[in-house]
């Protein structure tokens, strides 16, 4: 094979393996963070028995899930029933491939961008795969052949579709300011002109609210409202298959946090870092750490909100999405276009 092709393939494979490993670890530890933070909010102790501070708890949970019996109820439609958890999990991971976690770094004499795919239509790819997540939920609900599952799946699909719209229109503001669909361009534009969240606050807030709805987190976790729907679309799942849904939820949270950081909080940008005059490698490390810190902040907010706010009623959810967020997002787009034109004149 051509050595250039081989080099590209090796580079991509190493990056994919690295991203995959880190994401799965963070997903596992998010369950621990969720339980510890919820305990802290509710003045309890939380899991603190397995390892120091309970740090080995995710490992114990993983082993438990693997060894539990995975019951397949006799009334499910088996091929789709087995496929659905995977179809939720994969889009969440794929979306992360276009998010830059740091500037390009020079390693072994090559410029290596710190993202898997620096594609021209990064934002569109994100929206495309976000819309793919609906299938997993809807199919899990349908293939379980259970009225609660079906209701949960239907609710979730309607919710995802409604909030995708507001999210997409909120992102339009960022795109107009940058003039590019490439996520690295969006970050460099913010480094030059200040973070988008500072002057597009409504868009930022709409994006974050929609991200909560897209990830099925409280206060928008109606698909699994246990008081009405038992456990919604994953009622009939057990063992590792059930845990796939949870892993997908956390993977979605991490991706949504990374997107909010990249689109609105300057990505890996640290204000005033260039003035310090550090060597290049140290700069890159600090910037990657800054990115992780921003993502961690969003993840904490996700957990914080979950243990603070009660759940919406379904009509409230639809009213908020269609009559609240969507008109505000449209007005925001108009306002940003005026600002962009004024800035250019």
């Amino acid at each position: 094979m051509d050595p250039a092709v081989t080099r590209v393939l090796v580079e991509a494979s190493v990056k994919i393996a690295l991203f995959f490993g880190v994401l799965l670890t963070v997903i596992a530890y998010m369950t621990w963070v969720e339980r510890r933070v919820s305990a802290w909010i509710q003045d309890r102790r939380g899991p603190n028995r397995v390892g120091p501070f309970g740090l080995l708890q995710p490992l114990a949970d993983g082993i438990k899930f693997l060894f539990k019996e995975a019951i397949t109820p006799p009334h499910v439609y088996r091929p789709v029933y087995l496929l659905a958890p995977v179809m939720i999990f994969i889009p969440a991971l794929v979306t992360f491939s276009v998010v830059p976690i740091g500037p390009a770094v020079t390693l072994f004499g090559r410029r290596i961008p710190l993202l898997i795919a620096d594609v021209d239509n990064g934002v569109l790819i994100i929206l495309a795969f976000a819309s793919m997540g609906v299938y997993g939920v809807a199919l899990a609900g349908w293939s379980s052949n259970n009225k609660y599952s079906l209701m949960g799946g239907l609710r979730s699909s309607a919710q995802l579709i409604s909030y995708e719209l507001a999210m997409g229109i909120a992102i339009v503001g960022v795109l107009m300011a940058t003039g590019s669909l490439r996520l690295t361009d969006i970050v460099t534009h913010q480094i030059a002109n200040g973070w988008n969240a500072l002057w597009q606050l409504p868009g930022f807030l709409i994006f974050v609210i929609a991200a909560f709805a897209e990830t099925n987190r409280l206060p928008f976790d109606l698909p699994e409202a246990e008081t009405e729907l038992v456990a919604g679309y994953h009622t009939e799942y057990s063992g590792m298959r059930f845990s796939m849904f949870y892993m997908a939820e956390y993977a979605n949270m991490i991706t949504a946090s990374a997107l909010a950081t990249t689109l609105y909080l300057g990505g890996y940008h640290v204000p005033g870092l260039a003035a310090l005059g550090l060597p290049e490698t140290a700069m890159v490390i600090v910037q990657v750490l800054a990115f992780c810190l921003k993502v961690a902040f969003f993840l904490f907010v996700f957990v914080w909100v979950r243990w603070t706010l009660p759940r919406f009623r379904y009509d409230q959810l639809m009213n908020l999405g269609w009559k609240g967020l969507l008109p505000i997002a449209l007005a925001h787009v108009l306002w940003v276009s005026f600002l962009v034109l004024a800035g250019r004149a």
Partner: protein
Amino acid sequence: MVVRLLLGLIFVLVAFAVVRALAPARAALAGIVLGAGAVVLVALNRQAITSVEFWAGLVGFAAILSALMIVIHPNPMVSVLFLIVNLFSVALFYLILNAQFLAAIQVIVYAGAIMVLFLFVVMLLNLKAEEGLRGGGGPQRYGAVILGGLFAGLMFHALRNRGPRPYFEPGSFDSGFGTARELGRLLFTRYLFAFEAASLLLIAAMIGAVVLAKRRLR
């Protein structure tokens, strides 16, 4: 060489379809035919594995296979899933042709939005899986065989007599070809009228749907 690859693909697909149609219950057998065919084809064409044509052929294989499964599969829900796979393959074709924007839009609009509606309709209609394949009655069957034979002849003719130039050379395109920037420029200058006319059409359809749906409430 490309001709051989394509003919091989078509042959494997036809064999798969015949096995599926004659023995609907033996899904594993059809799968084995498919897998064995794929392995043989890759082994025969291993020197072409880095060429664009090979990958285009592979995507075409996935597209045709999923299209076949839409028709063959007894469960309407699974048919919808294969239609999603098919629309994805079309998006991959756009990518191979350097039309990245179109590929993303294909996934968002067709695979993402329209197919969700299809899925809902099939889900809520609660269609039962059909027992096996219903062979089309009498005259329809002969018509299908004749038309299929004609189409196969046409394909064969086209493959045999194609010119020496490759089907497409993405390397010869402009660097901006297929990007959102270029597409937007064209839509808002050269094709502005068509663009606005299409949007008017869509709004008319939307208003029409609302009027029809709300007629009862008044």
